């Protein structure tokens, strides 16, 4: 059990945004969080990362409550939105900074980034721009690459496919699939094709509640489509 969510609730005013009774996640799973806007996906992710204080309940990472200690930061990497990027840095500076937090030297970071030339499509490194000057798609690429660079045991990505060009979407899917088994991945997406393709488990949420939680098989995509078209 690498992640466990118990009785998690977040209430704003009289509106319950997240209300999840119990989720257990075993190491190596790739989980897709699916739901319409306002289903509470981002709020849920923020609670996983201890960015929002739950109204009730707890998130246990390797058995420890994320709100009470910070050990989980050693093996968790995430990219939710541009708010995670330090946008006044050049990408190189940002990678070096993130690397230094994880005891990676500048040389390590450089070596790591070498293999991402294709992913970045040569638009990101040595571009002479700050991150804030990039298009949204390229910002997302920086965020995802920085998260993967940390070689995390748990990876959390919010809508990673949005804003990416088709080629990069496919590359990202391959990257994620290659990690399956060794890394626990939690992604949210509005693109049913992508999640069913990448994930081996789907959690469907609506209005903050888990509606369905199941392993993917060949029928999953159809099931999801029929659910959302209803």
């Amino acid at each position, binding site marked *: 059990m690498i992640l466990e969510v118990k009785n998690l609730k977040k209430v704003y005013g009289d509106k319950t945004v997240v209300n999840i009774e119990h989720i257990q996640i075993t190491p190596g799973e790739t989980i897709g969080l699916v739901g319409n806007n306002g289903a509470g996906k981002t709020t849920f992710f923020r609670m996983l990362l201890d960015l929002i204080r739950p109204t009730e309940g707890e998130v246990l990472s390797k058995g420890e409550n994320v709100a009470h200690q910070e050990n989980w930061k050693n093996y968790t990497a995430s990219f939710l939105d541009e708010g995670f990027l330090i946008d006044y840095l050049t990408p190189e500076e940002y990678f*070096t900074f*993130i690397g230094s937090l*994880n005891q990676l030297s500048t040389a390590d970071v450089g070596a790591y980034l070498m293999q991402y030339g294709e992913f970045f499509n040569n638009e990101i490194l040595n571009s002479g721009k700050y991150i804030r000057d990039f298009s949204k798609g390229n910002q997302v690429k920086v965020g995802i690459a920085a998260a993967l660079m940390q070689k995390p045991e748990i990876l959390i990505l919010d809508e990673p496919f949005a804003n990416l060009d088709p080629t990069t979407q496919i590359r990202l899917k391959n990257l994620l699939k290659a990690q399956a088994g060794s890394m626990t991945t939690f992604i949210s997406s509005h693109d049913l094709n992508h999640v069913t393709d990448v994930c081996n488990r789907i959690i469907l949420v609506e209005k903050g509640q888990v509606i369905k939680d199941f392993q993917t098989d060949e029928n999953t995509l159809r099931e999801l489509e029929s659910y959302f078209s209803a």
Partner: protein
Amino acid sequence: MLNTFLSHQRKSFWRSRNRGGSIAAQVVLGLFMLYFLLVALGIGFGMKIFLPKFFPHQDAITSFNGIILYYFAFDLLMRLQLQELPTLSIIPYLNLKISKSKIVAFLNIKALFSAFNLWPFLLFLPFCFVAVLPQHGFLVVSAYILSIISLMLLNNYLILFLKRKSISNILFTIGGLAIVSAFVALEYFKIISIMAGSDWVFKAITKQPLLALIFPAIAFLIFKINAAFLRKNLYVEELSAKQEKKVSTDYAFFNRFGKAGELAALELKLIIRHKRPRSTVLMGTIILVYGFLFYKPEVIQSNSFGMMLFAAVFMTGMSIISYGQFMFAWQSSHFDGLLSNKIDFKDFIKAKFLLFTIASTILTILASFYCFISAKLLILHLVAYLYNIGFTTVMVLILATYNYKRIDISRSASFNWQGMGATQWISIFPFILLPILIYWAFNIFHQPYMGLLAIGLFGLIMLVTRGFWVNFIVKRFEKQRYKIAEGFRE
């Protein structure tokens, strides 16, 4: 059409989300504006009295003539750094059925709405009416006014053109400042005199008012060049000031401080690369001239440090308070990232202390040039320095944990009240009042130096116990971080 544009602009100003929300903040802002306007007007009307005092060997009108060109030289430099290109506002109109010439006309009119175009009226016109009119009559005054307004317009459009044409690098401004200062120096040593030149020009205009027409002619020419350039290049990416190539930098100096140093280097980049924090910090250096107002020979002679202490604390600690009062909010746009990354909160807080200490140290070193007035001031500054790095830093960071207001740091700092709240106002008082209170307590017994010693000791004790305060602030920060993060996400 122009009216429609302008009404849109008016709406965009009044409905702007970044305008300080609370009424109180706006009232204070209004008062500040009024204050500055009155000060400018006061200088304008007072020139008849000030000028003979500053330049005792010549009559007021000669001095007035002399400063006009100087003013506009400085004006040009200030504009180079501060005046913004009114470009973004036209984006929504470009794809509509509006002729380009109308958009250009709008851009040119919008460019007039700048504070820089207000000061000359307040500073120069009063003197024209009060002093020039009685002596030279109506025609000459009209020529003066025409020249001054034309010079203002000339600067206005020239700077827009220059900014659009080339990279508006801060080095240009510094270089320009150096040139103007060189001229001031040459003036002082009576080698070349711009003042005499400026006076010569306006003397000529006094003799032959029609000569003044040359200024509107030049201004009109520049206006036309600018308009033609705009007309030809009406593409948003070409109109905004050109971007320099950004390079990655590494501040090796900070590496010796470990993780905290790295975070401090990160924040230093934040300061250097954004307008608002940059000008906030620069303000701290400008404050250094405060000493000239407070350090009077008779005050120094009598060891009455009370008011001087005020100036000293202000000068050595201004950057701490002005930057610190928005603390954590500077990083509001990526605060979530900082929290979810592997950053020890203790390092995070230590980095702030490190930056503050460095800033205050630099300011104190700079301020030590006052020792030419009196060596006593060095003691005073040392005391203020200890107080600031010991106490003010702790104060500011404790208060920072109560600050939940997001700010957009890419906007300019002047009259920007975004992120202003009660915390900011309260924070200034104890910071200034406390040392003066301590000092007064000793001064009742006529022990001015004991008073200074007490303040210095107080600062030193706070400094020695910094470890405790770091832990204290970290605890508060841990408790408050959700609230802070939530506020910053708004």
